[in-house]
């Protein structure tokens, strides 16, 4: 069931939601969270489609906030709110309201969203594009327990990562981080199998893909070893090579779907590491609603402390938010990493 409301208010939308729900006879409270998607018209369709797929795992009320661009000064002073209320089969499993904001109300989107939040239930805000630099202090972000950004979609992903680290508030997360969950679990499982000590790591992937940096920072943060970030043609992440005292462990994925895991002294194994679509990522992100401490720790390691093979220059400037022990640890193994560089280059394609 789909209803269009033109020049409306949040209270009319609320009434329509109750009416629609009664008309189709489904109760509201199976819904476990409110997902707020803040986007522009261009990305709204894809984002909503992803959210609607994700709602099969997490029944939710989805509020899509579309900020319309006003072309003339007259449009900017006039304020209008249009809504499309979808319940039942048109809205995945849950309810969807597409809110189109025109004119002045664009700057006051939180006033529209606040009355439409489900009682008590957690709120997640997701910016598929154009995420604010400080999500927790964004008026919409402030309503939420979790704030999902996507550095993959921005102009300068690596720079943006540094900004995210500066503004990090518990509850922040990034889809670039979610993308590497299978990699992380595979690498962790691989290391669990062997009793070797990792001495250096190389993460290889396409340029301008912040997932590579995040994976590198995670490894550097957890293993306390120097990590090199090198570039390849993609797609996405292509390989992680770990040098251990009992030989290399390599996870290599050249085609974006099937990877090979090779551990010294063990047969090579094929591992499914498919690049996942946004719906799966969002569904995974919604599984846990408490702050992601591992992400925070990896992010705060600092992009500029990663070693680079030269084609992409590292961000400049000293970072101050870095905890002291890690800083000390990073200095010591630096020479070792350079010593291993030739080995790594040879392994690269």
């Amino acid at each position, binding site marked *: 069931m789909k209803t269009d409301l033109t020049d409306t208010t949040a209270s009319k939308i609320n009434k329509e939601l109750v009416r629609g729900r009664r008309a189709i006879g489904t*109760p509201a409270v199976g819904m476990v969270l409110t997902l707020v998607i803040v986007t522009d018209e261009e990305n709204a369709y894809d984002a909503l489609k992803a959210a609607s797929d994700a709602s099969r795992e997490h029944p939710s009320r989805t509020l899509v906030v579309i900020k319309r661009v006003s072309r003339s000064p007259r449009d900017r002073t006039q304020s209008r709110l249009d809504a499309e209320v979808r319940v039942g089969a048109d809205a995945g499993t849950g309810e969807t309201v597409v809110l189109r904001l025109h004119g002045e109300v664009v700057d*006051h989107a939180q006033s529209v969203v606040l009355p439409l939040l489900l009682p008590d239930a957690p709120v997640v805000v997701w910016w598929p594009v154009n995420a604010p630099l400080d999500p927790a202090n964004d008026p919409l972000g402030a309503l939420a327990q979790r704030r999902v950004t996507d550095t993959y979609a921005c102009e300068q992903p690596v720079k943006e990562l540094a900004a995210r680290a500066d503004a990090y508030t518990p509850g922040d997360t990034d889809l670039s981080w979610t993308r590497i969950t299978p990699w992380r679990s595979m690498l962790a499982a691989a290391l669990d199998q062997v009793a070797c000590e990792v001495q250096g790591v190389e993460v290889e992937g396409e340029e301008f893909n912040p997932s590579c940096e995040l994976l590198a920072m995670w490894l550097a943060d957890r293993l306390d070893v120097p990590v090199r970030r090198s570039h390849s043609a993609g797609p996405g992440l292509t390989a992680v090579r770990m040098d251990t005292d009992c030989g290399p462990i390599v996870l290599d994925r050249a085609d974006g779907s099937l990877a090979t895991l090779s551990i010294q002294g063990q047969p090579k194994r094929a591992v499914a590491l498919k690049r996942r679509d946004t719906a799966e990522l969002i569904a995974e992100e919604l599984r846990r609603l408490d702050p992601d401490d591992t992400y925070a720790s990896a992010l705060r390691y600092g992009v500029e402390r990663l070693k680079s093979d030269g084609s992409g220059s590292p961000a400049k400037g000293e970072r101050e938010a870095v905890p002291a022990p890690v800083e000390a640890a990073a200095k010591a193994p630096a020479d070792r990493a350079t010593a291993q560089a030739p080995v790594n280059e040879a392994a690269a394609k």
Partner: protein
Amino acid sequence: MGFARREWANEDFAQEVHDAVKEHARTPFREEVWQQLIQGMRFVQGTFDDDESFERLRGTIEELDKAQGTGGNFAFYLSVPPRSFPVVIQQLKKHGLADQTGGSWRRAVIEKPFGHDLKSAEELNAIVHEVFAPDQVFRIDHYLGKETVQNILALRFANTMFEPIWNRSFVDHVQITMAEDIGIGGRAGYYDGIGAARDVIQNHLLQLMALTAMEEPASFDADALAAEKTKVLGAVRLPKDLGRDTVRGQYAAGWQGGAKAVGYLEEEGIDPSSKTDTYAAIRLGIDNRRWAGVPFYLRTGKRLGRRVTEIAVVFQRAPHSPFDTTATEELGSNAIVIRVQPDEGVTVRFGSKVPGTSMEIRDVSMDFAYGESFTESSPEAYERLILDVLLGDSNLFPRTEEVELSWKILDPIEEYWDTNGRPAQYPAGTWGPVEADEMLERDGRSWRRP
């Protein structure tokens, strides 16, 4: 029958009623019913201090009584400003309209405000009771006519699963909220100087609290109910430090639900230096065996996030958790929420394991909604209450003692506010001033988002 100053003929009055019925009746408009109703519709033009007008009123009533065969039974619905009360009541008495004779009845319906403090309420009661006996007076508090409010009694006393935990051993605290998304609209003259606490807490919220907290009445008749409500209102204890445990606010300019809203002080007809509260939050205790130590947080306000009234009974956390803290990080407190309006119903919140290989517990809700379990439309609150007046059933009407006890609770708070500070400002469209959040934070709790 209508009585007012405006120059209307019977037909004008009937037309006004006709239009209102056609637009707002919850059942379809039926011409034959309307024809029956219109037979008894009259309008008497007059003023409150004019004897002649009341003579005409009496004449018309007597004439109608004969024509319609109402057997001398009349109910007077006094929708008049408080200052006109004495004169109207006296006029009714003077012209013999209030005298019950030979088996017939006379009843008076009074709307809020029932005074603006204890003293004025006592005066008002004295004036009314001089002419009408206590059992002839019906004070309309339309909240009590709502299905969900009556359902509080059904929920508590017709079931076994709620009452055993309905006490200090299990309940952590209770939050009673009545939020409106509108401003004062055109009611500046009435509202300024009265404020949210007098307008809502004194009657609606304290009544809801009484129904939530009272002991089981011996029976469901008016006397037994009133006795229990009176007992619990009498046991209410005010916070020691009124500055710490009460908060009042005024809405400032902002955006509400996507529309621009002006601040209270900029509303038309409001004194820019007004100290009237449009938001009030107070913490009360109830000194009895059942509730000692359990705070009741009452809040109300205009221009809040959305229009909602609910009672949330929030339970204590489990005394021991065998799960680690990561598993229960997202788990809140169990709660029973009675949604009074809109979307009337009851929600029960508790933790449940999230499907998957790891142990993770998250809040889920179980819901009962009137609109889904009973698709028949329930009577409007006023519909129910007016019927009760005609039947003489005073179950759902607060009595003199309850009104006076409520003022006894609120008066010290109002006095404190009068002499201390100014209302906190909150942007329109939010859930009230930050001071209110801080008030609960000090107690280690937080307001629910209704």
